[in-house]
């Protein structure tokens, strides 16, 4: 789960990481009054995607009137498919140097990798590709206390001043505490700025959380922003289906994520174009099949549907019953190609045949025929 910058800032403050002053607003007038008394103001779009600055969603304003006009310009703006509805006004801090300080769950090191560079700012991703050695890395573990001496030496690689290093040490420890306390998967401060007065402060923040751990943290789950998922993706999650919208015309219902991905690949391989990824999961609930078809059929681009089930935990007879249920509940106005094998395959096919539906054996054949009925090339 992702959160907005202002939500990350709230968490930073709560855990004692210094941030420059900020307020969340929804109108240009609010932006103006909220930033009263600040010499220079940063007006920032709050959207759940990176690259806001490059998209024109971050502007500097020198007076109250500018704050209002720039806020008006940013509100309603579309950034990578997200409409800006909230903006953050911040007391612009003078910057002597921009650092990047981040922590990310690292699957290849089986730990949390701490990253630091004194070349922070908007081009950090380019730096990571161009000059990965410029980003210092150190692995931390959730079950082990931080080795303060090692951490101080690590911070010294990018932060030479004693006072600044001490400030960064406190901030890093606070960020790690926050990371663990909320089951985060990513926490970034960028820029982590050094001011001309020698203060180290966070001027931006980003955090992602482990969806599987949200049950432990109702206060984090409550930060969920509905715009993170498309309406279809949201509904699918409510129904315990794993769904991702794609841009093709062949709807897919598959059991298991790996097989679902392989099915999409096969459709592409034979010249078709999938409309979605959908994993009905390992359950044997016929209603889930009906729910899945309901979501797929709402997409007007869908010209044909492929049902690909390899029964293991999932039983083919349950899937067959779900398909019949879907036919009763929904107006299925596109052709369906069904491939049904595995646990209770005989029973499942008998159910389908009694209703005049046929199911195939072979995956390649099923994919070729769904592409053909969708009007594709195979």
């Amino acid at each position: 789960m992702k959160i907005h910058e202002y939500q990350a800032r709230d968490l930073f403050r709560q855990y004692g990481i210094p941030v420059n002053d900020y307020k969340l607003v929804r109108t240009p007038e609010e932006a103006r009054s909220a930033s009263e008394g600040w010499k220079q103001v940063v007006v920032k779009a709050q959207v759940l995607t990176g690259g806001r600055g490059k998209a024109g969603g971050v502007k500097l304003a020198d007076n109250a009137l500018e704050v209002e006009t720039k806020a008006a310009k940013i509100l309603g703006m579309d950034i990578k498919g997200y409409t800006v509805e909230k903006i953050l006004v911040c007391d612009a801090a003078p910057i002597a140097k921009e650092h990047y300080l981040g922590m990310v769950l690292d699957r290849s090191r089986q730990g949390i990798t701490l990253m630091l560079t004194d070349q922070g700012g908007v081009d950090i991703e380019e730096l990571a590709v161009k000059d990965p050695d410029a980003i210092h890395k150190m692995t931390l573990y959730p079950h082990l206390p931080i080795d303060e001496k090692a951490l101080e030496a690590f911070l010294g690689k990018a932060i030479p001043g004693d006072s600044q290093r001490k400030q960064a040490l406190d901030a890093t420890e606070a960020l790690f505490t926050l990371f663990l306390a909320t089951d985060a998967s990513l926490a970034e401060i960028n820029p982590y700025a050094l001011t001309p007065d020698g203060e180290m402060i966070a001027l931006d923040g980003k955090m992602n959380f482990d969806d599987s751990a949200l049950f432990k943290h109702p206060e984090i789950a409550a930060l969920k922003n509905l715009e993170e998922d498309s309406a279809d993706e949201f509904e699918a999650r409510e129904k315990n289906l794993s769904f991702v919208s794609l841009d093709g015309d062949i709807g897919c219902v598959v059991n298991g994520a790996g097989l679902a991905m392989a099915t999409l690949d096969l459709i592409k391989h034979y010249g078709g174009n999938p409309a979605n990824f959908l994993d009905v999961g390992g359950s044997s609930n016929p209603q889930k099949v009906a729910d899945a078809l309901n979501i797929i059929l709402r997409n007007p681009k869908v010209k044909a549907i492929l049902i690909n089930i390899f029964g293991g935990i999932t039983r083919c007879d349950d899937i067959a019953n779900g398909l019949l249920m879907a036919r009763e509940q929904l107006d299925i106005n596109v052709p369906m190609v069904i491939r049904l094998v595995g646990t209770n395959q005989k029973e499942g096919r008998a159910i389908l045949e009694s209703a005049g539906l046929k199911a195939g054996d072979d995956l390649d054949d099923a994919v070729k025929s769904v592409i053909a009925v969708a009007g594709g090339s195979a």
Partner: protein
Amino acid sequence: MSILIDENTRVIVQGATGRDGSFHLRSMKTDGTKIVAGVTPGKGGADVDGIPVFNSVAEAENAGDADASVIFVPAKFASEAMKEASDAGIPLIICITEGVPVLDMVEIYHLVRSRGQVLIGPNSPGLICPGKCKIGIMPASIHKPGKVGVISRSGTLTYEVVHALTQAGLGQSTCIGIGGDSIIGTGYLDLLERFEADEGTDAVVLIGEIGGDTEERAAEFIRASMLTPVVAFISGRSAPEGKRMGHAGAIISGGQGTAEAKVAAFKAVGVPVADTPNAIPALIANRRA
């Protein structure tokens, strides 16, 4: 021959009285697995299909002298269940449960490693040595005893591949689903090493997917340390960047973890990569010839 399990492996089922646990306990027993005990806290003294149920893994271990424990408990309790199995000294722990918090897994990963135990999963379909022992949820009927080892991050895709192998007359020594999460107990490298050492395995199918860099590291390991022929398949070739495709680990981010990079890594070390699951048996036949 096989790796990790065989016809003598004695198995405990954690979460034995639950809906999934009891169903699969029966199914594993039917498929010939030596199930020695079940565990459900508070249900000690009960039995499932004639298998005695205990309150804790330690009690079950005392009574059953187990070699392995398979976990079917809900996600909220799965971390504790893995720790309990580890504390009881079970050498092989298999976690079927999906949705275990990742930071919990980091801790458990290091705990079981430090104790020399083997953890498969979480979010794994388990493992099977056809005709001898099944610890997991896969349909035993599609398997056939033989000499091909199978390692995969997926569940149903593995069935698809195994089905294709069996149809082509290629039996399997051991098939293992390592799990689709980002932190898992055992990865490709450990298992490739075991297959390389196993006399009963003369070819290996590695089924990978987008996300992370374990396939790339597996390719390097194959180049440096394996004589047994390996054939690969990668799913997620058509996946868009930034969208998680079901598995917690299956995501392309920042240009990392793409299918192209993985396919290229295998091809560079002479490991053929199948375009479709059905193309795998022919590639194995070629490599063995």
